[in-house]
């Protein structure tokens, strides 16, 4: 009976180790991903898209970025997206003046279906 208990304990222990192992490895390129997301925001800013929050221009630039990088760019709740990020790789929160009001926007960058971007 005790042997059985010990074997069950061993199994549980192995399962716990197996589930914790991926968590023990930190993301190697987390900072780099964040830098890429900030690059995208700066591109919007330098291209003048944030002045007046021109969503049409932002969409064009988002598609251009997707063409270059194969990454999907999405501004949460702002109808700006090049493709839907199915697997998010990073996100940053930024403040922009949207129609005269300061608003916090989430910029999501991820991997998704880019077939429609040509």
């Amino acid at each position: 009976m005790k042997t059985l208990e010990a074997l069950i304990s061993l199994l549980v222990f192995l399962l716990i180790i197996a589930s914790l192992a991926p968590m023990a490895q930190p993301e190697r390129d987390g900072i780099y991903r964040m830098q890429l997301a900030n690059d995208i925001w700066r591109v919007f800013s330098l291209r003048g898209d944030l002045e007046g929050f021109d969503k049409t221009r932002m969409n064009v630039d988002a598609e251009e970025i997707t063409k270059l990088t194969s990454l999907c760019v999405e501004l949460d709740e702002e109808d700006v997206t090049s493709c839907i990020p199915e697997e998010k790789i990073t996100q940053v929160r930024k403040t922009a003046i949207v129609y005269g009001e300061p608003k916090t926007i989430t910029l999501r960058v991820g991997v998704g279906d880019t077939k429609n971007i040509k």
Partner: protein
Amino acid sequence: MDSQYRTEKILHTRAFVSFDTLIAILPVMIILLFAIKTSVMYGNFSDEKVAGTSEYDRLVSSADYLVNYGLVKKESGKYYPNWIISVDDAEVKKIGDASGLDLQVFLDSTDGANGINSDYGTCIYRLIIYGEKKNIEKIYFCTNGADDANGNGASG
């Protein structure tokens, strides 16, 4: 009679407990062995990871500096992060030397990205605005390993 029966029962019980403990100790030993092996493996893995990522981390830091300050447009003492007018090779070499990397910079439109990955060990890219026309560009930062002259490198 009663005493003899009790003695036999005690002996049987002790024998059973000892045997059961003997078998139960095996999984415990396996658990301990597994725990020790795992900790040793993760220790080695961390060492390799530190050695391997140090070059990558220095590349990411160098690229970040160059994209934010080193190569960007400067006007009246003001810096424009991510806006590059031209690539200053001297600045790239200076930062490469300082970080102990054989750092190379390529622009997607002018130099092209083809062949970069096969020639260089590690490459990353950053998004920038290039030139006065403000085109969206990808700029590659590559290194083929540590600059041995500095003697502080790690292989990736």
